[in-house]
């Protein structure tokens, strides 16, 4: 039964891909929305009906299993819920009016398939199933990022994103193999039973895979490459699917992973570093989508930290809050980019042209800033409190990261929707786009309920967890930092100040402290090595063969001349020798008696002397 959660959307995606090209835009959009809604309905059914584990046997060693869990329940609901408005928006924003065409059908089918693969990923109960789903969402992301394949740059960026995340996928291969080596199976239960160095290897592999997907340091730069995809794709990747997969894995397996002593410190360190570095990158970025992308890394860094300090449920709540606001922000950025003709924040300030969009986006921006009373402010507060359980400075650093979020959120909002005296909008957003944007903002507003104690106790009960104790002083410090961040953001975006990085240093920070360039350089180096090896293979390895052939050829020629002459000469000389001997012998037959007699005498003397020598010796 659980298989239907992934199977139905994937099957629907295949149908949509094959049959969608001839349908018109509205029909394709409706079909995609229906498929995602079906996924959502199935997830709710599974939860309400308490659907049990399901397995599918490949062979004795390879058995794929799905099983429900608390984290999976939250994700299976959140993923289609977020994907639904994104799919509607995609239909109206990307597809031309009239027939959807092949590429339109492909886009919608891939979005639906992505949701299905993600559902499989979160339900997986063993590392093999996880790996399968993990790679499937990677492939979907490649196809989605490369959606506009006609531009050469786009497919190159898709390649970069795919390879970087697949680099992390290798960690999952290692982890799965380590679990198999230790237990003969691949299930999470086998992983939990593991100990010794194999557990270390497995945990290291899982953390590597999660870091690459979650765009944590040092893999963060692929998110910028992923920006080559259309806006709804970015929204989907950042809010509900690809990036979320890494976090999900940590949340799901945290009790097991924590069995390794270095797990918590490592995850805290990665999360904290990414949270701060991502925030600085976002503050320096002048590209709307890249600013949001850097903020995604930063926010996921905070979630990592929550997992590291032992509160995966807190990370889960922040994930949901972040999903709503980030999806809304990306969709809004798409409208702004269409209006201004590009993704550069410098050319926007569309407050007068898109007043409604600006106002709706303000909700999401405030959520990103962590402003009370929105839900994300509460979850961020919980992360700080959880960090405070470990050390005071950790809590304060989380609060600082929150302040930086407020800064870049303000920067985004004011640069995109600040007011200037430009003309009113020429092409107002379609109803579908507006509806998608509004429903995401409504979700963000609804999450404010988390500030209400009974509600959050209900959530805690549902997730079978407890919240860390919060402190009023920490809340006040956070709030002060958020306000300071908003103020700084306001000041940084005052009219007349340049938006692009002002100095070379800022430009480097804006590109992930040079990580993007490093990634590029690694790719170039590998390509150069490959070309050199290819030349070596022709000139070096194959040269051995050619040399052998030449030696053989030379030998053949040598034989043809000298060998043949020798072989020919030997019998020739022998026959000549025999000839000569014959001639000589013939001369002895002279017919003259005295010749014969003297020969006989010589012979007798010779025999006698031989006999004498024999006697004497």
């Amino acid at each position: 039964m659980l298989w239907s959660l992934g199977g139905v959307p994937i099957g629907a995606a295949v149908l949509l891909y094959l049959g969608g090209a001839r349908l018109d835009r509205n029909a394709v959009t409706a079909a995609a929305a229906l498929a995602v809604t079906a996924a959502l309905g199935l997830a709710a059914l599974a939860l309400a009906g308490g659907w049990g584990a399901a397995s599918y046997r490949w062979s004795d060693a390879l058995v794929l299993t799905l099983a429900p869990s608390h984290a999976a329940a939250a994700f299976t609901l959140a993923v289609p819920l977020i994907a639904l408005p994104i799919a509607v928006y995609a239909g109206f924003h990307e597809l031309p009016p009239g027939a959807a065409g092949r590429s339109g059908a492909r886009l919608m089918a891939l979005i639906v398939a992505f949701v299905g693969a993600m559902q499989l990923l979160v339900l997986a109960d063993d590392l093999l199933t996880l790996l399968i789903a993990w790679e499937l969402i990677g492939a979907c992301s490649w196809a989605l990022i490369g959606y506009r394949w006609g531009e050469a740059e786009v497919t190159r960026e898709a390649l970069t994103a795919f390879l970087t995340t697949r680099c992390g996928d290798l960690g999952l291969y290692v982890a799965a193999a380590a679990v198999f080596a230790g237990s003969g199976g691949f299930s999470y239960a086998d992983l939990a039973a593991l100990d010794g160095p194999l557990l270390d290897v497995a945990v290291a592999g899982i953390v590597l895979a999660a870091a690459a997907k979650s765009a944590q340091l040092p893999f963060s730069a692929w998110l910028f490459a992923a920006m080559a995809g259309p806006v709804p794709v970015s929204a989907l990747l950042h809010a509900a699917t690809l990036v979320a997969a890494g976090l999900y894995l940590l949340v799901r397996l945290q009790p097991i992973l924590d069995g390794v002593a270095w797990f918590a410190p490592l995850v805290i360190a990665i999360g904290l570093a990414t949270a701060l570095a991502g925030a600085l990158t976002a503050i320096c970025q002048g590209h709307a989508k890249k600013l949001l992308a850097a903020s995604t890394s930063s926010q996921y860094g905070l979630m990592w930290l929550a997992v590291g300090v032992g509160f995966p449920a807190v990370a889960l709540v922040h994930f949901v809050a972040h999903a709503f606001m980030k999806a809304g922000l990306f969709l809004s950025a798409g409208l702004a980019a269409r209006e201004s003709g590009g993704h550069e924040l410098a050319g926007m300030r569309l407050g007068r042209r898109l007043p409604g969009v600006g106002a709706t986006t303000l909700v999401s921006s405030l959520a990103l800033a962590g402003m009370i009373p929105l839900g994300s402010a509460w979850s961020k507060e919980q992360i700080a409190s959880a960090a405070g359980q470990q050390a005071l400075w950790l809590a304060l650093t989380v609060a600082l990261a929150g302040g930086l979020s407020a800064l870049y959120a303000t920067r985004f909002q004011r640069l995109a929707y600040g007011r200037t005296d430009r003309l009113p909008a020429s092409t107002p957003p379609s109803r579908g786009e507006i509806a998608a944007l509004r429903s995401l903002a409504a979700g963000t507003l609804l999450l404010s309920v988390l500030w209400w104690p009974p509600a959050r106790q209900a959530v805690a009960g549902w997730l079978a967890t407890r919240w860390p104790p919060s402190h009023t002083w920490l809340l006040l410090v956070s709030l002060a930092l958020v306000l300071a961040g908003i103020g700084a953001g306001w000041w940084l975006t005052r009219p007349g100040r340049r938006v692009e990085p002002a100095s070379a240093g800022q430009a480097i920070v804006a590109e992930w402290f040079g990580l993007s360039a490093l990634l590029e350089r690694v790719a170039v180096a590998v390509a150069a090595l490959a070309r050199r090896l290819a030349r070596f293979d022709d000139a070096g390895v194959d040269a051995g063969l050619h040399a052998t052939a030449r030696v053989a050829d030379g030998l053949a020629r040598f034989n043809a001349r000298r060998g043949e002459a020798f072989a020919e000469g030997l019998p020739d000389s022998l026959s000549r020798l025999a000839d000569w001997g014959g001639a000589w012998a013939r001369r002895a037959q002279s017919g003259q008696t005295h010749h014969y007699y003297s020969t006989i005498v010589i012979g007798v003397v010779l025999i006698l002397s031989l006999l004498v020598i024999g006697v004497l010796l």
Partner: protein
Amino acid sequence: MILSIALAVPLLGALALAGYPRWSAVQARRIAVGAAGVSLAALIVAWLGFDPRGAQFQHVVELPWVPSLGVAYRLGVDGIALAVATMSALLFTAAAIYPVDTRGEPRSYYAWLLFMQGVSLGVFLTLDLLLFYVFFDLSLVGMFFLIGRWGHGQPQLSALKFFLYTFAGSLLLLLAIIGLYLSLEPHSFDMRVLIEQQPLAGGGLYAGLVFLALMLGLAIKTPLVPLHTWLPQAHVDAPGPVSAILAGVLLKMGVYGMIRLPLSMMAETFARYAPWVGALALLAIVYGALVALGQGNLKRRIAYTSVNHMGYGVLGIAVAASALGDPAARQLALTGASLQMVVHGLITGALFLISGSLWQRTGDYELAHYGGLAHQAPLLTGFTVLAAFASLGMPGLAGFVAEFQVFAGAFAVYPWLAVPALAGILITAALFLDMLRRLFFGHLPASLATFSDLARAEWLVLGVLSLGIVTIGVYPSFVLTLLESASSALVGGR
């Protein structure tokens, strides 16, 4: 009996095509497809009649031939041989259907193709060591003429290089086979006797030399780095369907030979050298992938990925042969290696057929001259994307199931070989996505404005191969059951 039909029908078809001069091109092709199809059907019947829990070798036929030498007409299959033979027959049928320029000599082209099918199946189906060698060598003859007569570029040179290089390997194999034969008392070429008696189990110089000759001979055919340089040139100059046969079937003879001869008959000696064989396989995996990435020629690129993929196969075999490690892990690796043979045949077969289609349309393999075909030829793009993703090991498609098993099994036995081998997975991803990008995405050059999409015969064939790729990727148990019956006998039965 059923195996004899599979073996004889293509050979008879070849004889008929060669002997009867009045058939037209269409008729010749029909006869070839028919004969290949009958052979395939016979193997499918054999598959359905195969009992995975039964004896190791089934459908056995034995007729005396030269009793004084211990040579007999012996046929029989285990799960691995049956799966590889069936895949080969499918690929031959596909190659016969696939349109190709026969240069006005359709009868002889299809006759040689059927001849190749007969002798190739012979390699997989025979249980007699001498027959194995005879078929192994005859396959070179068929391929020599197919490349030399219907190739392009410098076909004569490539065919000659292919023949001489692989023939050198065959000679080593012959020496080793004679060595094995002589070690048995009374002398016999019966594989089952050799497997049962393990005549060279004592070790020593003699066993080592026989093993070395066997492995060298088979490594040339596989091919393992650095014995692989005959491969790219032969591929580039061969017509598409012949390339598909070369990569899909002929390379399997090397890997299959390693399972059937050294692994089965010299388990103890193989165990001693297994880490070295594994290290060579790792070299093939990483080096093959990197060199493939460095190629600007479509066919050379695909050809080098074969070196990489066969490396996984050999790694799996080396792991299975190892004296260390858990039998379950070694069996997993061997199952993976045998599955790798089947799926590589389908995937690379599809890729080479596709490159044949490109050649038929443009006469060019340079990736740099292509671009933007996705709009022009959506079917071609779709099938290529599927085959490329299968080849780079995407789950849901066949390649993943094989490579994952090899890797998981190898890690449990030789983690120091398995982890670096993962680099191959990353590099193949890079090289295939780069290939797709250069062929299908970006701008369409003006010279390709009239490029036509796949014809029906083409997409039907690719559709069937793709169906096989997806089926094995999603529902591999039907073939895994078959392969596991053989691999458990090979690994557990010592």
